[in-house]
Protein backbone atom coordinates (compact mmCIF):
# COMPACT_ATOMS: atom_id res chain seq x y z
CA UNK A 1 0.00 0.00 0.00
CA UNK A 2 1.56 3.32 -1.04
CA UNK A 3 1.25 5.16 2.27
CA UNK A 4 2.33 2.27 4.56
CA UNK A 5 5.88 3.50 5.16
CA UNK A 6 4.73 7.03 5.99
CA UNK A 7 2.08 5.72 8.46
CA UNK A 8 4.58 3.41 10.14
CA UNK A 9 6.97 6.36 10.52
CA UNK A 10 4.21 8.44 12.13
CA UNK A 11 3.53 5.52 14.46
CA UNK A 12 7.09 5.78 15.76
CA UNK A 13 6.77 9.47 16.60
CA UNK A 14 3.35 8.91 18.22
CA UNK A 15 4.85 6.14 20.36
CA UNK A 16 7.63 8.53 21.44
CA UNK A 17 4.99 11.12 22.30
CA UNK A 18 3.14 8.62 24.47
CA UNK A 19 6.35 7.47 26.14
CA UNK A 20 6.98 10.88 27.62
CA UNK A 21 3.77 10.81 29.70
CA UNK A 22 3.26 8.39 32.63
CA UNK A 23 -0.26 7.53 31.45
CA UNK A 24 1.19 7.05 27.97
CA UNK A 25 3.71 4.56 29.28
CA UNK A 26 0.91 2.73 31.06
CA UNK A 27 -1.02 2.42 27.79
CA UNK A 28 2.08 1.22 25.93
CA UNK A 29 2.80 -1.32 28.63
CA UNK A 30 -0.70 -2.74 28.44
CA UNK A 31 -0.28 -3.10 24.66
CA UNK A 32 3.07 -4.91 25.18
CA UNK A 33 4.99 -2.24 23.25
CA UNK A 34 8.54 -1.96 24.66
CA UNK A 35 9.05 1.41 26.30
CA UNK A 36 12.50 2.89 25.70
CA UNK A 37 13.43 6.26 27.16
CA UNK A 38 10.69 8.77 27.88
CA UNK A 39 11.73 12.31 28.74
CA UNK A 40 15.47 12.51 28.09
CA UNK A 41 16.00 16.13 29.19
CA UNK A 42 18.09 17.20 32.18
CA UNK A 43 16.43 20.50 33.26
CA UNK A 44 19.71 22.38 33.66
CA UNK A 45 19.41 25.07 36.29
CA UNK A 46 17.30 22.95 38.61
CA UNK A 47 19.09 19.58 38.28
CA UNK A 48 22.67 19.57 37.00
CA UNK A 49 24.12 16.66 35.05
CA UNK A 50 26.24 14.29 37.17
CA UNK A 51 29.60 14.35 35.34
CA UNK A 52 31.79 11.23 35.75
CA UNK A 53 34.90 11.56 37.87
CA UNK A 54 37.37 12.00 35.00
CA UNK A 55 35.47 14.99 33.60
CA UNK A 56 38.08 17.71 32.86
CA UNK A 57 37.53 21.37 32.07
CA UNK A 58 40.28 23.76 33.21
CA UNK A 59 43.49 23.18 35.22
CA UNK A 60 44.10 24.33 38.78
CA UNK A 61 47.17 24.38 41.05
CA UNK A 62 47.18 22.06 44.09
CA UNK A 63 48.49 23.15 47.49
CA UNK A 64 48.80 21.08 50.66
CA UNK A 65 47.48 22.75 53.76
CA UNK A 66 48.07 26.49 53.24
CA UNK A 67 47.99 28.27 49.83
CA UNK A 68 51.68 29.23 49.98
CA UNK A 69 52.73 25.55 50.32
CA UNK A 70 51.94 24.79 46.66
CA UNK A 71 53.49 21.81 44.93
CA UNK A 72 54.48 23.73 41.81
CA UNK A 73 58.22 24.49 41.55
CA UNK A 74 57.95 26.67 38.43
CA UNK A 75 59.96 24.20 36.33
CA UNK A 76 58.08 25.41 33.16
CA UNK A 77 57.76 21.88 31.70
CA UNK A 78 54.01 22.38 31.39
CA UNK A 79 54.54 25.78 29.78
CA UNK A 80 56.69 24.12 27.06
CA UNK A 81 54.47 21.09 26.57
CA UNK A 82 51.13 22.93 26.49
CA UNK A 83 50.06 22.54 22.83
CA UNK A 84 48.23 25.91 22.53
CA UNK A 85 50.79 27.82 24.68
CA UNK A 86 48.23 29.04 27.22
CA UNK A 87 50.41 28.85 30.40
CA UNK A 88 52.76 31.70 31.43
CA UNK A 89 55.07 31.21 34.42
CA UNK A 90 57.52 33.63 36.08
CA UNK A 91 59.74 32.11 38.80
CA UNK A 92 60.03 33.94 42.14
CA UNK A 93 63.49 35.52 42.28
CA UNK A 94 65.08 37.93 44.73
CA UNK A 95 66.99 41.06 43.62
CA UNK A 96 70.21 39.21 42.73
CA UNK A 97 68.24 36.87 40.52
CA UNK A 98 68.66 33.79 42.75
CA UNK A 99 65.46 31.69 43.00
CA UNK A 100 63.72 32.17 46.37
CA UNK A 101 62.88 28.93 48.21
CA UNK A 102 59.87 28.24 50.41
CA UNK A 103 59.28 24.90 52.09
CA UNK A 104 62.52 23.81 50.41
CA UNK A 105 61.13 24.36 46.94
CA UNK A 106 61.24 27.14 44.40
CA UNK A 107 57.83 28.64 43.60
CA UNK A 108 56.26 30.68 40.81
CA UNK A 109 55.78 34.43 41.36
CA UNK A 110 53.28 34.52 38.57
CA UNK A 111 51.34 31.54 37.12
CA UNK A 112 48.72 32.57 34.53
CA UNK A 113 46.52 30.25 32.49
CA UNK A 114 44.57 32.01 29.72
CA UNK A 115 41.23 30.19 29.86
CA UNK A 116 40.26 31.57 26.47
CA UNK A 117 43.16 29.62 24.88
CA UNK A 118 43.35 26.45 26.99
CA UNK A 119 41.90 23.43 25.14
CA UNK A 120 41.39 21.31 28.33
CA UNK A 121 43.54 18.48 26.89
CA UNK A 122 45.15 17.42 30.24
CA UNK A 123 48.68 17.18 28.74
CA UNK A 124 49.97 19.56 31.44
CA UNK A 125 48.77 17.10 34.09
CA UNK A 126 50.44 14.16 32.30
CA UNK A 127 53.83 15.84 31.94
CA UNK A 128 54.02 17.51 35.40
CA UNK A 129 56.66 15.56 37.41
CA UNK A 130 55.41 17.03 40.74
CA UNK A 131 51.63 16.40 40.35
CA UNK A 132 51.25 20.12 40.96
CA UNK A 133 48.52 20.77 38.40
CA UNK A 134 45.22 18.91 38.07
CA UNK A 135 42.03 19.27 36.02
CA UNK A 136 38.99 20.89 37.61
CA UNK A 137 35.37 20.20 36.62
CA UNK A 138 33.91 23.63 37.27
CA UNK A 139 32.28 24.73 33.99
CA UNK A 140 30.06 27.69 34.86
CA UNK A 141 32.57 30.40 33.95
CA UNK A 142 30.82 32.62 31.41
CA UNK A 143 31.75 36.29 31.72
CA UNK A 144 30.94 39.58 30.10
CA UNK A 145 34.53 40.80 30.01
CA UNK A 146 37.38 38.95 28.40
CA UNK A 147 40.34 40.23 30.44
CA UNK A 148 39.49 40.11 34.16
CA UNK A 149 37.49 36.90 33.96
CA UNK A 150 39.26 34.85 31.35
CA UNK A 151 42.87 35.00 32.47
CA UNK A 152 43.27 33.09 35.77
CA UNK A 153 46.20 34.28 37.84
CA UNK A 154 47.91 32.23 40.56
CA UNK A 155 45.46 33.13 43.31
CA UNK A 156 42.46 32.16 41.25
CA UNK A 157 44.08 28.84 40.27
CA UNK A 158 45.12 27.69 43.76
CA UNK A 159 42.86 25.00 45.25
CA UNK A 160 43.48 22.67 48.20
CA UNK A 161 44.42 19.00 47.97
CA UNK A 162 41.25 18.21 49.94
CA UNK A 163 39.20 19.82 47.15
CA UNK A 164 41.05 17.61 44.69
CA UNK A 165 40.28 14.52 46.79
CA UNK A 166 36.62 15.60 46.94
CA UNK A 167 36.09 15.96 43.21
CA UNK A 168 38.35 13.11 42.01
CA UNK A 169 38.72 10.48 44.76
CA UNK A 170 40.41 7.63 42.81
CA UNK A 171 42.73 9.96 40.89
CA UNK A 172 43.71 11.77 44.10
CA UNK A 173 44.39 8.41 45.76
CA UNK A 174 46.92 7.39 43.07
CA UNK A 175 48.55 10.85 43.17
CA UNK A 176 48.88 10.81 46.96
CA UNK A 177 50.24 7.25 46.82
CA UNK A 178 52.91 8.36 44.34
CA UNK A 179 53.81 11.43 46.43
CA UNK A 180 54.04 9.37 49.60
CA UNK A 181 56.31 6.83 47.85
CA UNK A 182 58.53 9.66 46.56
CA UNK A 183 58.66 11.30 50.01
CA UNK A 184 59.58 7.96 51.58
CA UNK A 185 62.30 7.39 48.96
CA UNK A 186 63.82 10.89 49.39
CA UNK A 187 63.54 10.71 53.18
CA UNK A 188 65.03 7.21 53.75
CA UNK A 189 68.39 7.15 51.77
CA UNK A 190 69.56 10.71 52.63
CA UNK A 191 68.63 10.74 56.33
CA UNK A 192 65.54 12.78 56.99
CA UNK A 193 66.42 16.10 55.26
CA UNK A 194 63.28 16.67 53.18
CA UNK A 195 65.10 18.30 50.26
CA UNK A 196 63.14 18.48 47.03
CA UNK A 197 65.22 18.40 43.87
CA UNK A 198 65.01 21.99 42.63
CA UNK A 199 63.68 22.25 39.13
CA UNK A 200 66.00 22.54 36.06
Amino acid at each position, binding site marked *: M*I*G*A*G*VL*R*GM*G*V*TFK*TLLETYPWGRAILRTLQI*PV*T*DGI*FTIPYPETKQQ*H*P*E*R*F*RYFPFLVYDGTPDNLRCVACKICE*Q*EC*PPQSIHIVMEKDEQGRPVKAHGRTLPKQFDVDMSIC*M*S*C*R*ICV*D*VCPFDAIE*MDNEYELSASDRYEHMIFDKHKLLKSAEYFQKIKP*TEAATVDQRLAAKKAKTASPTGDKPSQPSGP
Partner: protein
Amino acid sequence: MELKAGISPTIETQQLEVNLGPQHPSTHGVFRMIATLDGETIVKLKPVMGYLHRNHEQIGERITYIGSFPFTDRLDYFCAMSNNFGLALAIEQLGGIQASERGEYLRVIMAELTRLVNHTAVIGFLLNDMGAFGTPLLYAFREREKILDLFEAASGSRMMCNYVRPGGVREDVPEGWLERTRAIVNAFPRFLDEFEKLLTENEIVQQRCKHVGVLSKELAMNASVTGPMLRASGVNYDIRKVDGYSIYPRFTFRVPLGTVGDVYDRYYVRILEMRESLKILEQALKGIPGGPAISPKGQAIGKAPRTFRPPKGAAYGRIEAPKGELGFYLVSDGSPQPYRYHVRAPSFVNLTVLEDLCIGHKVADVIIILGSVDIVMGEVDR
Protein backbone atom coordinates in the same frame (compact mmCIF):
# COMPACT_ATOMS: atom_id res chain seq x y z
CA MET B 1 10.34 9.19 -14.93
CA GLU B 2 13.48 10.92 -13.68
CA LEU B 3 13.76 13.73 -16.18
CA LYS B 4 17.40 14.88 -16.39
CA ALA B 5 16.54 18.32 -17.72
CA GLY B 6 19.40 19.94 -19.55
CA ILE B 7 19.10 23.52 -20.75
CA SER B 8 15.57 23.77 -22.12
CA PRO B 9 16.13 24.76 -25.78
CA THR B 10 12.73 26.37 -26.41
CA ILE B 11 12.41 29.14 -23.80
CA GLU B 12 15.34 31.56 -23.63
CA THR B 13 15.83 31.84 -19.85
CA GLN B 14 18.49 33.76 -17.98
CA GLN B 15 20.71 31.66 -15.73
CA LEU B 16 20.67 32.59 -12.05
CA GLU B 17 23.86 32.36 -10.03
CA VAL B 18 23.13 31.55 -6.38
CA ASN B 19 25.56 31.31 -3.45
CA LEU B 20 24.71 28.34 -1.24
CA GLY B 21 26.88 29.13 1.80
CA PRO B 22 29.16 29.92 3.55
CA GLN B 23 26.38 30.61 6.03
CA HIS B 24 23.56 28.25 4.99
CA PRO B 25 21.32 26.10 7.16
CA SER B 26 22.41 22.82 5.68
CA THR B 27 25.95 23.03 4.35
CA HIS B 28 27.29 21.22 7.42
CA GLY B 29 29.45 24.14 8.52
CA VAL B 30 31.09 26.87 6.49
CA PHE B 31 31.12 25.39 2.99
CA ARG B 32 30.12 27.43 -0.02
CA MET B 33 28.79 26.28 -3.37
CA ILE B 34 28.42 28.74 -6.23
CA ALA B 35 25.56 27.19 -8.18
CA THR B 36 24.47 28.40 -11.61
CA LEU B 37 20.78 27.63 -11.98
CA ASP B 38 18.62 27.36 -15.06
CA GLY B 39 15.20 27.61 -13.39
CA GLU B 40 15.58 24.97 -10.66
CA THR B 41 18.14 22.77 -12.44
CA ILE B 42 21.83 23.01 -11.63
CA VAL B 43 24.01 23.85 -14.62
CA LYS B 44 27.35 24.50 -12.90
CA LEU B 45 28.48 24.07 -9.29
CA LYS B 46 31.81 25.33 -7.97
CA PRO B 47 32.63 24.42 -4.32
CA VAL B 48 34.60 27.05 -2.34
CA MET B 49 36.37 25.97 0.83
CA GLY B 50 38.92 27.37 3.24
CA TYR B 51 36.50 29.16 5.56
CA LEU B 52 37.64 26.92 8.41
CA HIS B 53 41.31 26.48 7.45
CA ARG B 54 42.82 26.51 10.94
CA ASN B 55 46.47 25.79 10.00
CA HIS B 56 46.34 22.34 11.58
CA GLU B 57 49.45 21.19 9.70
CA GLN B 58 51.53 24.26 10.48
CA ILE B 59 50.73 23.91 14.20
CA GLY B 60 51.46 20.17 13.97
CA GLU B 61 54.97 20.93 12.77
CA ARG B 62 55.74 23.22 15.73
CA ILE B 63 54.70 21.00 18.66
CA THR B 64 55.80 17.52 19.70
CA TYR B 65 54.21 14.31 18.35
CA ILE B 66 52.15 13.91 21.53
CA GLY B 67 51.18 17.60 21.52
CA SER B 68 49.29 17.21 18.20
CA PHE B 69 46.91 14.57 19.62
CA PRO B 70 44.42 17.11 21.06
CA PHE B 71 44.46 18.87 17.67
CA THR B 72 43.42 15.68 15.87
CA ASP B 73 40.25 15.66 18.03
CA ARG B 74 39.32 18.89 16.25
CA LEU B 75 39.92 17.55 12.72
CA ASP B 76 36.69 15.60 12.28
CA TYR B 77 34.90 16.75 15.42
CA PHE B 78 32.36 13.93 15.25
CA CYS B 79 34.94 11.16 15.48
CA ALA B 80 37.65 12.30 17.91
CA MET B 81 38.64 8.76 18.91
CA SER B 82 39.26 7.45 15.39
CA ASN B 83 41.29 10.53 14.45
CA ASN B 84 43.55 9.87 17.44
CA PHE B 85 43.72 6.21 16.43
CA GLY B 86 44.98 7.22 12.94
CA LEU B 87 47.76 9.45 14.29
CA ALA B 88 48.74 6.84 16.89
CA LEU B 89 49.11 4.21 14.14
CA ALA B 90 51.25 6.55 12.03
CA ILE B 91 53.54 7.37 15.00
CA GLU B 92 53.81 3.67 15.92
CA GLN B 93 54.85 2.93 12.33
CA LEU B 94 57.35 5.80 12.43
CA GLY B 95 58.80 5.11 15.88
CA GLY B 96 58.47 1.31 15.83
CA ILE B 97 56.32 1.17 18.98
CA GLN B 98 54.23 -1.94 19.69
CA ALA B 99 50.85 -1.36 21.39
CA SER B 100 49.75 -3.42 24.39
CA GLU B 101 47.06 -6.09 23.87
CA ARG B 102 44.37 -4.48 26.04
CA GLY B 103 45.20 -1.09 24.50
CA GLU B 104 44.53 -2.50 21.00
CA TYR B 105 41.14 -3.90 22.11
CA LEU B 106 40.17 -0.59 23.77
CA ARG B 107 41.17 1.36 20.66
CA VAL B 108 39.03 -0.86 18.40
CA ILE B 109 36.06 -0.55 20.79
CA MET B 110 36.37 3.24 20.82
CA ALA B 111 36.76 3.44 17.03
CA GLU B 112 33.66 1.32 16.43
CA LEU B 113 31.62 3.32 18.97
CA THR B 114 32.71 6.44 17.06
CA ARG B 115 31.47 4.88 13.84
CA LEU B 116 28.04 4.38 15.41
CA VAL B 117 27.97 8.01 16.56
CA ASN B 118 29.07 9.35 13.19
CA HIS B 119 26.69 7.28 11.05
CA THR B 120 23.61 8.07 13.18
CA ALA B 121 24.50 11.77 13.16
CA VAL B 122 25.00 11.73 9.35
CA ILE B 123 21.62 10.12 8.79
CA GLY B 124 20.04 12.59 11.21
CA PHE B 125 21.54 15.55 9.32
CA LEU B 126 20.58 14.01 5.94
CA LEU B 127 16.93 13.84 7.06
CA ASN B 128 17.18 17.35 8.44
CA ASP B 129 18.29 18.55 5.01
CA MET B 130 15.35 16.71 3.52
CA GLY B 131 13.03 18.78 5.66
CA ALA B 132 12.07 16.55 8.59
CA PHE B 133 11.76 19.15 11.35
CA GLY B 134 14.61 17.74 13.48
CA THR B 135 12.92 14.56 14.72
CA PRO B 136 15.34 11.98 13.18
CA LEU B 137 18.27 14.28 14.06
CA LEU B 138 17.17 14.50 17.69
CA TYR B 139 16.68 10.73 17.91
CA ALA B 140 20.22 10.33 16.52
CA PHE B 141 21.57 12.86 19.02
CA ARG B 142 19.77 11.07 21.86
CA GLU B 143 21.69 7.88 21.04
CA ARG B 144 24.86 9.92 20.52
CA GLU B 145 24.54 11.36 24.03
CA LYS B 146 24.48 7.86 25.52
CA ILE B 147 27.72 6.94 23.74
CA LEU B 148 29.29 10.31 24.61
CA ASP B 149 28.70 9.50 28.27
CA LEU B 150 30.87 6.42 27.76
CA PHE B 151 33.61 8.52 26.15
CA GLU B 152 33.36 11.08 28.97
CA ALA B 153 33.66 8.40 31.63
CA ALA B 154 36.74 6.88 29.95
CA SER B 155 38.62 9.88 28.57
CA GLY B 156 37.27 12.88 30.51
CA SER B 157 35.73 14.89 27.69
CA ARG B 158 32.56 14.34 25.65
CA MET B 159 33.82 15.30 22.24
CA MET B 160 37.55 16.06 22.49
CA CYS B 161 38.68 12.76 23.95
CA ASN B 162 42.49 12.91 23.40
CA TYR B 163 42.48 9.36 24.72
CA VAL B 164 44.49 7.20 22.29
CA ARG B 165 48.30 7.31 22.53
CA PRO B 166 51.05 5.50 20.54
CA GLY B 167 51.30 2.20 22.44
CA GLY B 168 47.67 1.98 23.56
CA VAL B 169 45.37 4.34 25.41
CA ARG B 170 46.21 7.06 27.94
CA GLU B 171 44.36 5.53 30.92
CA ASP B 172 42.55 2.27 31.46
CA VAL B 173 38.76 2.47 31.46
CA PRO B 174 37.15 2.89 34.91
CA GLU B 175 35.63 -0.27 36.34
CA GLY B 176 31.98 -0.84 35.43
CA TRP B 177 32.62 0.84 32.09
CA LEU B 178 32.65 -2.40 30.08
CA GLU B 179 29.29 -3.49 31.53
CA ARG B 180 27.76 -0.11 30.62
CA THR B 181 29.14 -0.44 27.09
CA ARG B 182 27.69 -3.96 26.75
CA ALA B 183 24.30 -2.65 27.85
CA ILE B 184 24.36 0.15 25.27
CA VAL B 185 25.63 -2.14 22.49
CA ASN B 186 22.85 -4.64 23.23
CA ALA B 187 20.21 -1.86 23.23
CA PHE B 188 21.45 -0.26 20.00
CA PRO B 189 19.88 -2.71 17.50
CA ARG B 190 16.40 -1.87 18.82
CA PHE B 191 17.08 1.81 18.19
CA LEU B 192 18.30 0.97 14.66
CA ASP B 193 15.11 -0.98 13.94
CA GLU B 194 13.02 1.96 15.15
CA PHE B 195 15.14 4.36 13.06
CA GLU B 196 14.66 2.15 9.99
CA LYS B 197 10.94 1.93 10.64
CA LEU B 198 10.86 5.75 10.65
CA LEU B 199 12.96 6.17 7.50
CA THR B 200 13.78 3.25 5.21
CA GLU B 201 10.32 2.39 3.91
CA ASN B 202 9.12 6.01 4.06
CA GLU B 203 7.82 6.71 0.55
CA ILE B 204 8.82 10.38 0.67
CA VAL B 205 12.40 9.46 1.61
CA GLN B 206 12.50 6.86 -1.16
CA GLN B 207 11.14 9.26 -3.77
CA ARG B 208 13.58 11.99 -2.71
CA CYS B 209 16.67 9.77 -2.50
CA LYS B 210 16.41 7.07 -5.14
CA HIS B 211 18.29 7.73 -8.38
CA VAL B 212 19.55 11.09 -7.11
CA GLY B 213 23.26 11.88 -7.28
CA VAL B 214 24.33 8.57 -8.84
CA LEU B 215 28.10 7.94 -8.51
CA SER B 216 29.41 5.38 -11.00
CA LYS B 217 31.98 2.79 -9.93
CA GLU B 218 34.71 3.97 -12.32
CA LEU B 219 34.38 7.67 -11.40
CA ALA B 220 34.45 6.76 -7.69
CA MET B 221 37.66 4.76 -8.01
CA ASN B 222 39.30 7.30 -10.29
CA ALA B 223 38.43 10.23 -8.01
CA SER B 224 39.96 8.53 -4.94
CA VAL B 225 36.58 8.50 -3.17
CA THR B 226 36.75 6.30 -0.07
CA GLY B 227 34.48 5.14 2.73
CA PRO B 228 30.73 4.43 2.68
CA MET B 229 30.38 6.63 -0.43
CA LEU B 230 32.69 4.31 -2.39
CA ARG B 231 31.13 1.12 -1.06
CA ALA B 232 27.65 2.45 -1.92
CA SER B 233 28.76 2.47 -5.56
CA GLY B 234 29.66 -1.20 -5.27
CA VAL B 235 33.48 -1.08 -4.88
CA ASN B 236 34.61 -3.54 -2.21
CA TYR B 237 37.40 -1.50 -0.52
CA ASP B 238 37.41 -1.29 3.29
CA ILE B 239 40.82 -0.48 4.77
CA ARG B 240 40.02 -2.56 7.86
CA LYS B 241 39.92 -5.57 5.52
CA VAL B 242 42.59 -4.43 3.02
CA ASP B 243 45.35 -3.36 5.42
CA GLY B 244 44.17 -5.44 8.39
CA TYR B 245 45.73 -2.86 10.72
CA SER B 246 45.61 -3.13 14.52
CA ILE B 247 43.69 -6.30 15.52
CA TYR B 248 40.83 -6.09 13.00
CA PRO B 249 41.74 -9.42 11.30
CA ARG B 250 40.70 -11.19 14.54
CA PHE B 251 37.09 -10.06 14.21
CA THR B 252 34.63 -11.56 11.72
CA PHE B 253 32.52 -8.89 10.07
CA ARG B 254 31.33 -8.22 6.51
CA VAL B 255 31.42 -5.16 4.27
CA PRO B 256 28.02 -4.05 2.86
CA LEU B 257 28.09 -2.89 -0.77
CA GLY B 258 25.45 -0.87 -2.60
CA THR B 259 24.32 -1.43 -6.19
CA VAL B 260 23.20 1.88 -7.77
CA GLY B 261 25.39 4.35 -5.83
CA ASP B 262 22.71 7.02 -5.24
CA VAL B 263 21.78 8.93 -2.09
CA TYR B 264 19.54 6.06 -0.93
CA ASP B 265 22.37 3.54 -1.21
CA ARG B 266 24.77 5.82 0.68
CA TYR B 267 22.13 6.13 3.41
CA TYR B 268 21.36 2.40 3.64
CA VAL B 269 25.01 1.25 3.43
CA ARG B 270 25.68 3.36 6.54
CA ILE B 271 22.87 1.61 8.43
CA LEU B 272 24.24 -1.81 7.42
CA GLU B 273 27.74 -0.70 8.46
CA MET B 274 26.40 0.21 11.87
CA ARG B 275 25.05 -3.31 12.24
CA GLU B 276 28.46 -4.70 11.31
CA SER B 277 30.16 -2.41 13.83
CA LEU B 278 27.82 -3.78 16.49
CA LYS B 279 29.06 -7.28 15.64
CA ILE B 280 32.68 -6.15 16.04
CA LEU B 281 31.85 -4.49 19.36
CA GLU B 282 30.23 -7.64 20.71
CA GLN B 283 33.27 -9.75 19.78
CA ALA B 284 35.72 -7.15 21.15
CA LEU B 285 33.83 -6.71 24.42
CA LYS B 286 33.78 -10.48 24.86
CA GLY B 287 37.46 -11.01 24.08
CA ILE B 288 39.10 -8.05 25.86
CA PRO B 289 42.10 -9.32 27.92
CA GLY B 290 43.53 -7.88 31.17
CA GLY B 291 46.96 -6.34 31.44
CA PRO B 292 48.29 -2.80 30.98
CA ALA B 293 46.30 -0.39 28.80
CA ILE B 294 49.50 1.10 27.34
CA SER B 295 52.93 -0.33 26.56
CA PRO B 296 55.75 0.87 28.87
CA LYS B 297 57.40 2.75 25.96
CA GLY B 298 54.11 4.50 25.20
CA GLN B 299 53.75 5.38 28.90
CA ALA B 300 57.22 6.93 28.93
CA ILE B 301 56.50 8.99 25.82
CA GLY B 302 53.25 10.20 27.37
CA LYS B 303 55.10 11.30 30.50
CA ALA B 304 57.87 13.17 28.65
CA PRO B 305 56.93 13.96 25.03
CA ARG B 306 60.23 15.79 24.36
CA THR B 307 62.23 12.62 24.82
CA PHE B 308 60.48 10.87 21.90
CA ARG B 309 62.79 11.42 18.88
CA PRO B 310 61.81 8.95 16.10
CA PRO B 311 64.55 7.91 13.64
CA LYS B 312 64.90 9.97 10.45
CA GLY B 313 62.42 8.81 7.79
CA ALA B 314 58.77 9.02 6.67
CA ALA B 315 55.62 7.04 7.46
CA TYR B 316 52.09 7.05 6.02
CA GLY B 317 49.59 5.47 8.41
CA ARG B 318 45.96 5.21 7.37
CA ILE B 319 42.77 3.92 8.97
CA GLU B 320 39.14 3.39 7.93
CA ALA B 321 37.58 6.44 9.57
CA PRO B 322 33.76 6.63 9.46
CA LYS B 323 34.04 9.05 6.51
CA GLY B 324 36.71 7.21 4.52
CA GLU B 325 40.46 6.78 4.47
CA LEU B 326 42.08 9.07 7.06
CA GLY B 327 45.85 9.12 6.47
CA PHE B 328 48.71 10.78 8.40
CA TYR B 329 51.96 11.41 6.50
CA LEU B 330 54.79 12.11 8.96
CA VAL B 331 58.36 12.97 7.93
CA SER B 332 60.79 12.90 10.84
CA ASP B 333 64.27 14.48 10.94
CA GLY B 334 65.21 13.11 14.38
CA SER B 335 63.96 16.12 16.36
CA PRO B 336 61.00 15.90 18.78
CA GLN B 337 58.87 17.88 16.28
CA PRO B 338 57.69 16.27 13.01
CA TYR B 339 59.44 17.87 10.02
CA ARG B 340 56.36 17.46 7.81
CA TYR B 341 52.88 16.67 9.19
CA HIS B 342 50.19 16.09 6.55
CA VAL B 343 46.64 14.82 7.04
CA ARG B 344 44.87 13.09 4.14
CA ALA B 345 41.24 13.99 4.96
CA PRO B 346 38.52 11.74 3.49
CA SER B 347 35.86 14.49 3.25
CA PHE B 348 38.28 16.79 1.38
CA VAL B 349 38.94 14.21 -1.36
CA ASN B 350 35.35 12.93 -1.48
CA LEU B 351 34.24 16.45 -2.44
CA THR B 352 36.05 16.17 -5.78
CA VAL B 353 33.02 14.44 -7.31
CA LEU B 354 30.40 16.81 -5.84
CA GLU B 355 29.98 18.73 -9.11
CA ASP B 356 29.62 15.54 -11.17
CA LEU B 357 26.88 14.30 -8.84
CA CYS B 358 24.90 17.55 -8.85
CA ILE B 359 24.77 18.57 -12.53
CA GLY B 360 21.24 18.25 -13.86
CA HIS B 361 19.56 17.90 -10.47
CA LYS B 362 17.34 20.37 -8.64
CA VAL B 363 18.43 22.70 -5.83
CA ALA B 364 16.63 20.47 -3.32
CA ASP B 365 18.67 17.47 -4.55
CA VAL B 366 22.01 19.30 -4.25
CA ILE B 367 21.38 19.78 -0.53
CA ILE B 368 20.72 16.10 0.13
CA ILE B 369 23.58 15.00 -2.16
CA LEU B 370 25.91 17.13 -0.04
CA GLY B 371 24.31 15.61 3.05
CA SER B 372 24.95 12.08 1.77
CA VAL B 373 28.60 12.89 0.92
CA ASP B 374 28.95 13.63 4.67
CA ILE B 375 31.60 16.32 5.01
CA VAL B 376 32.85 17.95 8.19
CA MET B 377 34.54 21.28 7.61
CA GLY B 378 37.16 20.83 10.32
CA GLU B 379 38.55 17.96 8.28
CA VAL B 380 37.97 19.43 4.81
CA ASP B 381 39.83 22.68 5.52
CA ARG B 382 42.24 21.32 8.21
